[in-house]
């Protein structure tokens, strides 16, 4: 019977839930499969009226899939959605609106060149004799905006206002149209501190009015400041739903990053010192609005693991080092000689390589062949006029394809037809073909199958043993522990800790991510 099932899931979901009708909206055991990839695996999610419910998880955890199911953009492959206790099928976001579910996205998707009032009432304008009653629309808009503490001219063009105001207008529109559930998908990503505070006031007011609010962000401070409960997803599975007042920051981070990271053992096995030969030295290296200046020395034959949550500045750090977003502070030296690092081309000429986090957007050349994808960086290094001919390209692609165990029917097939794991291997092969001295890998094992995962970790170890220096960014703490000779921890766009020796264990790393560096940085016995 349904009642007993509901009671069970409520028991799991939170102490404040007391009856079946308590949830304004509920997802029961929803799953979503894309091809062979299980994006969401039997996830339960319950949303109470009058709460702000944070949804947390790293990239690929299934946050956006769950949101898309809750808003009707995707249909679940399993499980059911309930609104006020009754099962519903949501065919589209528009259909979800009729059940009272509204969404506001990070990028405001309103019409910036129309007036504020038009944006508020688009699609349901008040009419008079079949024509839009502009005066009434603006009058009602003014009242509506006042409720959100906005004193702006409803007739003014929306695009002239700040992103924060646009965001609030989007919320006002969503609440007015829907009124029961408000889903905020990273609403603060492009706001400054004051704007965030203003937005939070609006959200707190809506909460008091009884709205059920889902809040997605990767800023933990904001989660603790605003949310009542939190649901954590990891690799498509539900980790936990719990009240925030019963949770410490460290516990939260631990839930986000690892299954059950034990604080006791599992120290890194690589206690042997890296070769003492310094390859790179970054002094006070930083970039405004990106990463605060950091100091880092890179030796030959070592893997530096970079731990930190999404948005902590870990990717930004890699982009500065590789010259994509050049540093505007500090200096870098390579084997003692100053280097500029003003562009990727320059970094590659120095023997750098970079596997970006977003394989599809920044990594693969989808329409081009596996062969061309492998040789492209070496050819870029050789320049425009020293072209590798077809046979040389095939030799290289064959050699490095084999070294990385790339499973492709042909080296001339488009790389976009390969699986994610094989695409990642192609990009690794691309850099290995350039014989790099320093390789930066940003989340090299994300979203790939188990076999490819193991292959990549093996490759990292092999390259280190061959004397290459690697910087590996990963949110898989166990993985970072397994291959790093040193771990730097990023938090709030700042390098907050550098761990070595016995400090390289999951417990210390999680502690360092969650709190400030000093507490985690106890001296290693060497």
């Amino acid at each position, binding site marked *: 019977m349904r009642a007993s099932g509901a009671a069970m899931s409520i028991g799991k979901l939170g102490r404040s839930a007391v009856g079946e009708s308590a949830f304004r909206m509920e997802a029961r055991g929803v799953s979503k499969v894309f091809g062979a990839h299980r994006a969401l695996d039997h996830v339960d999610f319950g949303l109470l009226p009058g709460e702000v419910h944070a949804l947390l998880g790293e990239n690929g955890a299934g946050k956006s899939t769950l949101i898309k199911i809750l808003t009707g953009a995707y249909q679940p492959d399993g499980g059911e959605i309930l609104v006020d206790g009754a099962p519903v099928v949501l065919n589209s976001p528009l259909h979800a609106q009729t059940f009272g579910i509204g969404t506001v996205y990070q990028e405001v998707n309103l019409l910036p060149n129309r007036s504020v009032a038009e944006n508020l009432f688009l699609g349901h304008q008040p009419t008079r004799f079949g024509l839009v009653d502009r005066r009434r629309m603006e009058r009602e808009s003014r009242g509506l905006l006042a409720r959100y503490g906005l004193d702006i001219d409803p007739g003014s063009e929306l695009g002239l206002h700040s992103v924060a105001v646009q965001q609030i207008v989007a919320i006002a529109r969503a609440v007015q149209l829907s009124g029961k559930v408000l889903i905020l998908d990273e609403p603060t990503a492009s706001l400054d501190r004051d704007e965030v505070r203003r937005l939070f006031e609006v959200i707190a007011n809506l909460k008091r009015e009884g709205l059920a609010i889902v809040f997605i962000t990767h800023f933990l401070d904001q989660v603790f400041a605003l949310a009542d409960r939190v649901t954590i997803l990891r690799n498509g599975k539900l980790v936990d739903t719990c009240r925030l007042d019963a949770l410490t920051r460290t516990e939260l981070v631990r839930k986000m990053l690892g299954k059950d990271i034990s604080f006791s053992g599992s120290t890194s096995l690589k206690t042997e010192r890296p070769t003492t030969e310094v390859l790179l030295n970054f002094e006070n290296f930083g970039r405004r609005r990106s990463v605060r200046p950091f100091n880092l020395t890179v030796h030959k034959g070592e893997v530096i693991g970079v731990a930190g949550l999404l948005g902590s500045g870990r990717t930004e750090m890699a982009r500065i080092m590789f010259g994509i977003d050049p540093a505007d502070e500090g200096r870098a030296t390579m084997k003692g000689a100053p280097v500029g690092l003003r562009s990727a081309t320059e970094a590659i000429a120095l023997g750098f390589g970079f596997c970006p986090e977003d394989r599809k957007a920044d990594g693969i050349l989808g*329409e081009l062949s596996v062969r*061309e994808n492998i040789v492209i960086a070496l050819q870029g290094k050789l320049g425009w006029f020293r*072209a590798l001919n077809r046979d040389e390209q095939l030799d290289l692609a064959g050699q490095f394809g084999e070294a990385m165990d790339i499973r492709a029917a042909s080296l001339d097939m488009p790389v976009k037809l390969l699986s994610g794991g094989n695409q990642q291997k192609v990009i690794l092969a691309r850099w290995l073909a350039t014989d790099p001295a320093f390789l930066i890998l940003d989340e090299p094992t994300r979203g790939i199958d188990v076999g490819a995962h193991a292959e990549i970790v093996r490759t990292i170890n092999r390259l280190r043993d061959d004397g290459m220096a690697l910087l590996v960014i990963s949110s898989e703490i166990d993985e970072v522990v397994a291959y790093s000779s040193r771990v730097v921890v990023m938090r709030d766009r700042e390098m907050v800790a550098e761990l070595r020796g016995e400090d390289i264990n999951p417990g210390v790393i999680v502690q360092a991510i969650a709190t400030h560096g000093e507490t985690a940085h106890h001296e290693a016995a060497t």
Partner: protein
Amino acid sequence: MNRMALRNVVNTQTVALVGVLLLNWVLFPGFFRIEWQDGRLFGSLIDVLNRGAPVAILAIGMTPVIATKGVDLSVGAVMAMAGAVAASLVVAGYPAWIAVSGALALGLACGIWNGILVALLDIQPIIATLVLMVAGRGIAQLVTEGSIVTFSDPTLVFIGTGSFLGFPMPVVIAFALMVLVTLAVRKTAIGLFIEAVGVNRSAATLAGIRSRLLLIVVYSISGLCAATAGIIVAGDIRGADANNAGLWLELDAILAAVIGGASLLGGRFSIPMSVVGALIIQAMNTGILVSGFPPEFNLVVKAGMITLILMIQSPLAGHILGWFGRGKRGAA
């Protein structure tokens, strides 16, 4: 090896060209007749080549631009400007080589301008080149002071109407440019880089390709090609007509590149196939003329043929053909 070579020649474009030519022959039996007169070749087929040369030259420059996910709308206007500059210079008494150099330099400058707008200022190519498309014709009209500047400089006239080894000069120039640009992109890494930037500019840049410089070079080549076509057209009519020289030819050039297999989404390209595309367009124009159809039919018939060719090339058709071809490949 032979089969490879055959596969490189037999494809949608060449089959379409042969088909259009055969259709012309059915409608006008004398279509394939070629005569040797006064040291040069004459005939409808030669006429197709000669009339098609300006668009073919534009297409040679347009194809790499399209392969980078761009487009150059300014080529028609650049033709008009180049013609106006060349004509004005010879009329002012400068020797032909200065007139030609001046026109080419102008084309190069236009290309660099477009390249800077696209590569450095990140303006969408269609908008960036629209600026010069509109302004260029205006500038050409200013240069010619609103009238058609006529000239009789023998060198310029030779470029437009002369012949070399029996072939009309425009054909010789177009062929030479096709070989030159094809070798320049395929015997270097430039072709690969163009395709990489067109497919994914961000990934190409992260792989170390200097995509900005590459884009400027690609638009410069297009500007140079357009200027060359402009000189030829001016030489042909012995005058610079700022209002009509190259009018709408940018669209024919884009069409030629697309018929040649280039995608406006960037990526794969073939300069010889784009030239074949230009010849298909011209063969249809000539065919309609020689077959005695009223010229009013011209545009409609052309549109119908092009729709047919593009349908054959569409992903859906490729899917269906691939489905039929799978059995064969499996057996091989």
